[in-house]
């Protein structure tokens, strides 16, 4: 395929779509599917067929529309109507009303801040295209950035464009993406690799899953552009096996791209070749750490190794390797389409662009949102999510999963950017955002995340393997009102040791939930302590026995 043929295909597909008077987009991402979207889609298809409206009406399985709390969602094009909580019983009424007024009972107000305050780049096509058809993606301008990159730009120019955009890694740490690309581009090696990290494992996080399920070609296009920029010919998507729908759609997407010559040899009739393969994660959280991920792709046990050397110089099979997160790659095509200047005009001074968050917790509205960097936490919790229902009061918001921290109400006006969140003892993380009300006990919250880290520790380094176990024991003890002041001191000491001495990010950040809850909710720990005299210093008589040979 040539770029001209791509434009031709795009025009044809748009004309085909305009041939329909109505298009009913049924959300078929995991959340809506689990509340019955598949039945709704089938029902709509049958009803339309029975009414003889097949020529007029297109039923399209689309990606995530964001407002998971109101699913299953059905959006009508071009009427711009959104129906919520659609059940199979509602199908006849919807089909009946297609040429008249929409069904008022099912209407979802799209003027609410949940929709109005978002800024969509990564999710721009999510819910608007059929993720299982490459033609849908091409119709909205997909693969055009890749065509431009391959025919008009040098690899250096592509790297420079990403540098200028100010894009930072969306996996959590926020390392400048352009700098990483530049390092891999400069590294020497017979072979280079591009890896997409889709091993999303934080509890309550589902951003990457939604992107892969809703717009898989976007990630493939980003990876292909990256491969051209750094000089790689082979790519891997490391996706966790717990995401069967995302895997299915990725597989389809790769096949479709190969069929159209957008992957494989001579992409767009240029000498550039690039192939993407899927590798499935077997459920280990630590495999989201880049060196463990590489070990896992190589077929070994998913264990991290000390850095340096960084994967950019010494990665997969010892070759220079670029590893970026799903959301990072999903930004690339848009940056090259609209320009680095456009991208860097969004967000704050140091954090550019937007960030996708998965909102969970006792909120009026929850689901998937994409907001510009620099928005305040208050706006997210109280405007976009509509606050907490039933008069519950806000207690804390947890960002960054087991590596993150809890932010109390008094810091709600903090701007959402990498630096500000880090200052509060939390992190941006990959985008999980869990809101807690007054019924949550913060010692329990810290214990939950510590248990997660303990069970997910790979066991390679001592501080993480034993330290997380000991911290969990202490938290358990304190939560059960058996801990002493000395236990609390010991907990703080262990937090420091584990943070400073662990081998990889898992251990280094495991104490964050404890540290942040200790910082903002220390009273909840202290009110559970018993006096020192009740138990010995460590509760263990043998601990006092001197150890000599």
């Amino acid at each position, binding site marked *: 395929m040539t770029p001209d043929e791509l434009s031709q295909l795009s025009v044809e597909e748009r004309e085909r779509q305009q041939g329909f008077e109505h298009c009913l987009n049924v959300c078929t991402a995991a959340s809506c599917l689990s509340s019955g979207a598949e039945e709704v889609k089938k029902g709509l298809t049958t009803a339309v067929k029975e009414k003889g409206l097949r020529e007029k009406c297109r039923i399209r399985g689309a990606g995530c529309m964001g407002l998971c709390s109101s699913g299953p969602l059905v959006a009508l094009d071009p009427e711009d109507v959104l129906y919520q909580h659609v059940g199979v019983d509602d199908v006849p009424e919807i089909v009946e009303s297609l040429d008249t007024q929409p069904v008022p009972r099912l209407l979802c107000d799209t003027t609410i801040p949940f929709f109005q305050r978002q800024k969509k780049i990564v999710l721009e096509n999510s819910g608007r295209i059929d993720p299982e058809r490459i033609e849908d993606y091409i119709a909205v301008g997909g693969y055009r950035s890749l065509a431009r990159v391959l025919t008009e730009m040098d690899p250096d120019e592509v790297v420079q464009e990403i540098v200028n955009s100010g894009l930072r890694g969306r996996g959590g740490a926020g390392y400048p993406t352009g700098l990483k690309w530049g390092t891999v581009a400069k590294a020497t090696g017979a072979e280079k690799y591009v890896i997409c990290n889709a091993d999303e494992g934080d509890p309550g996080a589902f951003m990457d899953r939604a992107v892969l399920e809703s717009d898989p070609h976007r990630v493939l296009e980003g990876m292909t552009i990256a491969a051209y920029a750094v000089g790689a010919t082979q790519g891997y998507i490391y996706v966790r096996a717990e995401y069967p729908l995302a895997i299915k759609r990725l597989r389809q997407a790769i096949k479709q791209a190969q069929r159209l010559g957008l992957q494989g040899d001579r992409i767009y009739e240029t000498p550039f070749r690039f192939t993407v393969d899927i590798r499935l994660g077997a459920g280990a959280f630590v495999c989201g750490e880049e060196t463990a991920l590489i070990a896992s792709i190589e077929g070994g046990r998913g264990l991290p190794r000390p850095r340096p050397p960084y994967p950019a110089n010494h990665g997969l099979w010892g070759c220079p390797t670029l590893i970026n997160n799903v959301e990072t790659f999903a930004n690339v095509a848009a940056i090259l389409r609209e320009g680095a200047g456009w991208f860097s005009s969004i967000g704050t001074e140091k954090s550019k662009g937007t960030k996708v968050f998965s909102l969970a917790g006792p909120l009026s509205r929850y689901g998937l949102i994409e907001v510009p960097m620099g928005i305040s936490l208050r706006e997210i919790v109280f405007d976009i999510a509509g606050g907490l229902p039933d008069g519950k009061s806000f207690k804390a918001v947890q960002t960054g999963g087991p590596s993150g921290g809890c932010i109390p109400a008094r810091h709600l006006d903090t701007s959402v950017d990498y630096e500000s969140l880090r200052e509060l003892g939390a992190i941006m993380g990959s985008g999980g955002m869990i809101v807690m009300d007054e019924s949550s006990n913060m010692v329990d919250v810290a214990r939950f995340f510590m248990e997660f880290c303990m069970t997910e520790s790979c*066991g390679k380094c*001592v501080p993480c393997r*034993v330290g997380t176990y000991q911290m969990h024991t202490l938290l358990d003890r304190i939560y059960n009102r058996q801990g002493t002041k000395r236990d609390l001191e010991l907990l703080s000491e262990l937090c420091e040791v584990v943070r400073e*001495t662990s081998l990889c990010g898992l251990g280094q950040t495991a104490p964050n939930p404890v540290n942040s809850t200790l910082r903002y909710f220390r009273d909840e720990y202290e009110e559970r302590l018993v006096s020192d005299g009740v138990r010995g210093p460590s509760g*263990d008589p043998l601990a006092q026995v001197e150890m000599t040979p």
Partner: protein
Amino acid sequence: MTHKSIPTPDSFTLRIDGTDVVAQVGQSILEVAQDHNIGIPTLCYLEGLTPWGGCRLCLVEIKGSGRLLPACSTLATEDMDVTTTSPRIERYRRTIVELLFSERNHICAVCVSNGNCELQTLAQEMGVTHVHVPYRYPTLLVDSSHDGFRLDHNRCVMCTRCVRVCEEIEGAATKGVGGRGIDSMIINDLNEPWGESDTCTSCGKCVSVCPTGALTEKGTTFADMAKRRERRELLPYLTQTREGRR
């Protein structure tokens, strides 16, 4: 001063603990330090085996790096400024040793390696007289199914020296790690009794490299110093094998 201290075209200088020292290209910080008799505590490291970086005892400060880095697996580079010890690092090392003692059942008095144990020596050198964290007292099995050797999980520190020597030197790859996190265990083949292993050549290298009493030869007593001697003889062999591979 060893021969490695003499400047060659492949040598450069760096600072360790305020002293300028000569290093060869490709040497780790630990190797340079050992060449110059600067002591850095180690446990999982063993000369001749691929560095593992798991015990975290050899962590050192490097000026300009925000994090502590393991000396065993960090390459020395020109003009590096390394600090091998400080009150902070010593505190961390002590805590790590305490964590190791708390993890399994290290009862020196009934151990065949008493007086000949690297964990015990580390504790003595660091002045660890108390363990401040709660002991776990896990219930662990002892694998005595092998004719000549015994694997006592109670005394294992998961340094994986045995795993590495079995794969890298003997080429048998009998030993491996099973389980995850705190439940990690040294296993034989696909977690079979050692005596039933098809791949084990009974070479005994794993026993020689074990820093504690986890891997022992049957019939040895706690006063038996054979193990230590044997280990000394193995080192040059390991080094030679590695040099040959380079």
